[in-house]
């Protein structure tokens, strides 16, 4: 099995003094294999967001390492991390993922523009991705004219369009009602199965986490339990 992301004794502490210091990630060791569909779960403040951000090169760790496809990204400069995120990582956030003045289609196109993908290829992929997430026909709508679930699907399509090694999603369903949330997760699951895309997402929702093939339980910045189904 190929390992996409591996964290080694990953720590992220907030605050300067001993008393006020928060250990948001505390010696976290996780290996994510290609094609896995992993949920990070745990109570609020347990460090889910922190770990996802560290894995995706959005944040630098206090200590420890993050290896993405064998490369240690923990010590990369801001510019290197930028390029890394652009070419290897897809992010989906809880909300406000999209640029409000760009249409669904243009939101997806934008990241490929950053990657320097040719116009014709961009147009082709946009169509493909919108079809994958079941949004064909809505390509010209702006985010404001899309439902929350549709917006999240555009965010997934955008992440997929950049052809990343992994998609990291921080509570992608938290702002959706449970039916829409489950439907969104089904889209992700389908992409995972049909396209072998690796997903790591965090959630509080029991129904959502039940869809995952692997559950990483966190508490106080530590991995409490790591179970594969």
């Amino acid at each position, binding site marked *: 099995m190929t390992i996409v992301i591996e964290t080694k004794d990953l720590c992220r502490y907030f605050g300067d003094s001993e008393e006020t210091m928060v250990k948001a990630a505390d010696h976290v060791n996780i290996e994510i294999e290609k094609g896995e569909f992993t949920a990070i779960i745990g109570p609020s403040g347990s460090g889910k967001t922190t770990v996802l951000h560290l894995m995706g090169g959005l*944040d630098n760790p206090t200590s420890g390492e993050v290896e993405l496809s064998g490369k240690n990204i923990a010590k990369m400069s801001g510019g290197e991390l*930028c390029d890394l995120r652009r070419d290897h990582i897809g992010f989906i956030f809880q909300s406000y993922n999209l640029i409000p*003045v760009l249409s669904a289609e243009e939101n997806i196109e934008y990241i490929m523009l950053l990657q320097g993908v040719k116009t014709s290829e961009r147009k082709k992929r946009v169509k493909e991705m919108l079809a994958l997430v079941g949004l064909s026909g809505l390509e010209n709508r702006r985010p404001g004219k899309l439902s929350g679930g549709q917006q999240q699907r555009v965010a997934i399509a955008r992440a997929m369009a950049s052809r990343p090694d992994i998609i990291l999603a921080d509570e992608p369903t938290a702002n959706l009602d449970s039916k829409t949330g489950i439907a969104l997760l089904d889209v992700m699951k389908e992409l995972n199965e049909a396209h072998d895309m690796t997903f790591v997402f965090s959630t509080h929702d029991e129904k959502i986490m039940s869809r995952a093939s692997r559950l990483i339980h966190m508490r106080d910045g530590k991995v409490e339990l790591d179970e594969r189904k």
Partner: protein
Amino acid sequence: MLLIKLAFRNIFRQRRRSLLTALSLTGGYVLSVFSISMQDGSYANAIAFFTEDHSGHVQIHKDDYLDRAKIHKTIDNPNAIATILDKHPSIASYTTRVFAPALSYSDDGNTPVQLIGVDVLREKQTSRLYQKITDGNYFADSPNDDGYFSAMIGAGVANSLEVGLGDELILISQGADGSIANDIFIVSAIVGENNSPDKNTVFLPLSGAQSFLTMYGKVHQFSILLTDISDAREVATELQSSIPSLSVAPWQVVESSFYKTMQADREGNLVMLVIIGIIVFIGVLNTVLMSVLERSREFGVLKAMGSRPSKIVSMITLEVTMLSAMSIVLGLALAIPLTYWFSTAGIELPEPVDVGGIKMSRMTGLLTPTVFIIPMIGIFFAAIVVSIFPGLRAANVTPTAAMRSH
């Protein structure tokens, strides 16, 4: 294309705010164009006035005659110079002159005068002397039957000596050879009014002046009119190299005190424009900063997606530049007709104003591309400068912080 669209839509996101910003830029632009047009226009008028009145666009003298006029600093071979000037394509006309101080007498008194001997035919084409005659006739080149040359005298001389047309005028001066020059001249015309700059001048036909001052065949000055005044410096340099033994000067040197006043005044105007610009751009800065702060989550997403900070700065710069471009288009639509009207009709002044020593009673603007382009460059330059600070703010958004602030 997508980037342009993005910038364009971001501008139209806050319509009212962008409109107000654009209008203040447009206002600043139109104001700048108008003030440059007005200033350059009034100077162009003043310059046209004195160059066409008497100075010409380029002058030739012997040595430093321009700074220290001495009767013996003469151009001894005017015909050779004339041959060179005749061949130059940029020269419209030229004339030669001699100068000397003199005392004038009549039965009723005496007064010091400035004596100018002019080439009767060429002077008519090169200066406004002919048009300035208020009474009498332009003089002839040759003496009358009694051997007397005619003279045209400033109104001030006519008044203080109480002489009129046809009267005798006695001039006393020193010849170039040091001898005492004195002779009788017949008044043929009165030049100008009592308050004109020529009021104490006596004009003589060139040959009359030369024989009076015993400087046969020699002159003190060539005054040259060009087809285009803006070539003055260039033509002067060219002529200087073909006539190394003499001093060739463009009007900027000939009228150096006027020119210096004008340049200083222009600098003052520039300072004023820069101040207007700063006021306008503080407003723009405020707007851009506001819009950047409102959108910080978006910049967080863009950075999470892998946009380099420089990309984000250039995105903001593009927005401000496009807003400026739209303002300038609107500004041009207003400024072009306004400046056109101002340069053709102009404004009648209730009282004449003094422009570098020349009285102007009507103010007209200048209509040249420069008038529009200079403020344009200023606005674009300032727009880029103004967008840098908010751009850096946007580029420094940390995606983690932006994404956590739900």
